[in-house]
């Protein structure tokens, strides 16, 4: 595919990318391509009309077009992702109140990547409305922006201001693009196949029956899940970015060593950066951000994190997960405003240790949907029956592999340190990656966790 792509002119490259993206998405279920087409068509027109209205000084008309975009995208998202959740919750609440409420029951398949591309297109309409971006007049270019296959199903959620200019301009692919693209794909494969898939398989054993596991096993399984979700999602992001890089695109960096974060606020600057900045720019700041009273800021933080949790899935456990992070951010903000201590290295290490454990323990309600299982998990951890278990070595192994990938990058503050310092080692290193991936993959396909979101 790359060979064909490299031989095309810029215009035809975009057409080729669009066809490839639609074929890629249709391979999962061609019917849901219609949703992408609706989203693309509506936002393309909204961009043009809202911009024209804005230029003509008709801000009310521009706002109406923005509303059309938001309603269309949130309507698609709400129906396909949240209909069942809200109906079940409403019926449960009505039952508790003694009311007779029965909503039509529908079996709705969740379209892959819906949370990602709806947010991406909405950001385009909002940016055009705000005057931060000129609308795209070329429909193919815009359609590529919405459906760009490397990041279509699990992000990063690209901003139009960042990706559209790259689609519109001719792309010159350098040797560095190839090297760094391969490095991203290689580290992505290690994260996904070696760390996430295997750590996840081991963790599943204990998450599936937390009542039967010892405290050691539950603690290690929590560590393993923590590494699984990081490996899985950052692995996908890296593979997406690497693939895009081979085609001359530079996608936003979605993870910046989140488990080295020294506080929960720092964690959210490093974890799923494209979502956290989206929520910041299009939700938290419009709600008032930190411009109002301390109470108002706390409410804004909580609302943002609760909705951020709900974005991950139509289930109360995701809301609780988001709510817990909201509480941590509020507490962190409160502590920071009352404490003016100098940052020290020991303080940073302690902060990173504490943050990692808080984040890891908060993944438990994210992973387990049944509250009884969450209670059993924490009850098991609270028993403190710690003793040696072979799972310990699995956790150590994955931690070491993650450190070997993240450590040099964090120390040098250079994501491409290997490709830049030892370019000659890249080919054998990539070969070794392929070998390790082969030795790790067992023939059973494990889907990316974030595909479900």
């Amino acid at each position, binding site marked *: 595919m790359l060979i064909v792509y490299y031989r095309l002119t810029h215009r035809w490259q975009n057409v080729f990318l669009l066809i490839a993206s639609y074929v890629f998405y249709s391979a999962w279920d061609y019917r849901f391509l219609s949703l992408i087409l609706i989203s693309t068509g509506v936002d393309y027109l909204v961009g043009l009309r809202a911009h024209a209205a804005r230029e003509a000084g008709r801000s009310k008309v521009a706002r109406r077009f923005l509303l059309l975009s938001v309603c269309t995208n949130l309507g698609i998202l709400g129906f396909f992702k949240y209909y069942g959740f809200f109906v079940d919750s409403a019926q449960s609440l009505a039952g508790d109140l003694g009311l007779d409420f029965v909503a039509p029951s529908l079996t709705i398949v969740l379209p892959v990547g819906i949370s990602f591309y709806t947010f991406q297109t909405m950001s385009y309409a909002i940016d055009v409305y705000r005057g931060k971006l000129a609308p795209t007049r070329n429909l193919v270019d815009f359609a590529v922006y919405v459906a760009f296959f490397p990041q279509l199903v699990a992000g990063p959620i690209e901003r139009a201001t960042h990706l559209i200019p790259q689609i519109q301009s001719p792309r010159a692919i350098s040797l560095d693009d190839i090297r760094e693209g391969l490095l991203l794909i290689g580290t992505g494969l290690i994260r996904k196949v070696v760390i996430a898939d*295997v750590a996840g398989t081991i963790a599943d054993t204990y998450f599936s029956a937390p009542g039967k596991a010892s405290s050691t096993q539950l603690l290690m399984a929590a560590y393993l899940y923590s590494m699984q979700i990081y490996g899985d999602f950052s692995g996908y992001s890296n593979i997406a970015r690497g693939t895009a890089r081979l085609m001359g695109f530079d996608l936003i960096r979605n993870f910046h060593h989140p488990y080295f974060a020294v506080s929960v606020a720092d964690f959210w600057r490093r974890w799923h950066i494209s979502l956290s900045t989206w929520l910041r720019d299009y939700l938290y700041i419009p709600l008032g951000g930190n411009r109002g009273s301390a109470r108002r800021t706390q409410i804004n933080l909580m609302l943002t994190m609760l909705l951020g949790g709900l974005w991950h899935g139509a289930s109360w456990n995701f809301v609780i997960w988001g709510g817990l992070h909201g509480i941590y951010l509020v507490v962190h903000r409160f502590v920071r405003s009352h404490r003016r201590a100098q940052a020290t290295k020991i303080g940073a290490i302690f902060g990173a240790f504490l943050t990692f454990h808080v984040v890891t323990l908060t993944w438990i309600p994210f992973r387990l949907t049944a509250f009884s299982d969450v209670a059993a998990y924490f009850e098991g951890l609270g028993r403190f029956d710690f003793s040696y278990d072979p799972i310990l070595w699995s956790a150590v192994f994955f931690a070491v592999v993650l450190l070997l990938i993240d450590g040099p990058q964090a120390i040098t503050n250079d994501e491409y340190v290997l490709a830049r310092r030892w370019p000659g080692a890249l080919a054998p290193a990539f070969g070794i990656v392929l070998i390790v991936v082969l030795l790790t993959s067992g023939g059973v396909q494990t889907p990316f966790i974030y595909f479900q979101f």
Partner: protein
Amino acid sequence: MSRSVGRIVVGIIATVLLAEGLLRIPAVADAVPERNPYYHGGVQERIDALEALQAESDIDVLFIGSSVVRSNVSPHVFDDEASIALGRPITSFNVGGSGLHLDSVRLLYERLWSKLAEPDYVVQFVRYAELRSDKTAQEFFANNDIERAWAEGGIAGSTRSFLQEHSALYRRRGVLAAWLSHEKPQRGYKIDDRGHSESKPSLSEALATRDHSDIAGYEAIASGYGDPLDEETFATGLAVLEQTAQLVEDSGSVYVIANMPEYPEKFLAAPDGEERYQFYLDTLEEFAREHGIVFLDVTGGDANDFSAMELYSDYHHFTETGATRLSKDLALAFAITFG
């Protein structure tokens, strides 16, 4: 730039080939053992036993089929009886495997056994429930690497099966994951040197103790074969048998179909049980006649022929006593037919 990119590609390929070469060195290969690539650990055990046997003797008869072949046919007993009856030494081997549908038996024969052995006769045992099953091999092997590749075929499937058969590196897929997960090696049933697996306690013992895991086998007897029966019932099964017959013929062996007796209550618990059993036998016999295949039925058309509880460990797997009787009866029928 294209030269630099070419160098990177060559570097990647060279690294992978180096690993492939290293894994062909016996010491390295022993240090990084392969995982069992088949759907069941018993397949590899049978391959090893078959290769060991063939180092000493040619195979005259190969028994293929599901777990009822694995547990109900004893090649040692068969060989002793058949050798006496025929007046010449006979060597047979049992490659019956757990949980196989007819299509899976066909696939394993096509891709594995026909390449490993050249017997004079291939005897496939069939029982009623297998013949009326419409499950395909692809469904059964869906989660396993090599059989899934065989069943899928096409470029992707053929490439995967080629790699599985020829690449030392590919054959070690998942070894690191298995090691990290503290995965226990997949084991098959304990088999003798002819591929016959040891038998379990009899049904009567299981009923007496009521705590045997095979009690579930007895519980299944209560549900007789009572579903609707017509000409279409066996259509899929017969089509698969036809394919298997062709494969066997193409590999130069004589194909034989044999009826596998079951605990008679499975039939007799149904209102039209005896007619049903007869219909099944008639269908098999007619199929064999049409295709010029030998059909062996040691029950002589009598569902009650194998009715003693001591013969069974559940409603279709035999005890050692049952396996000995069936193997003797089969040897006699075989000698009469081919003597």
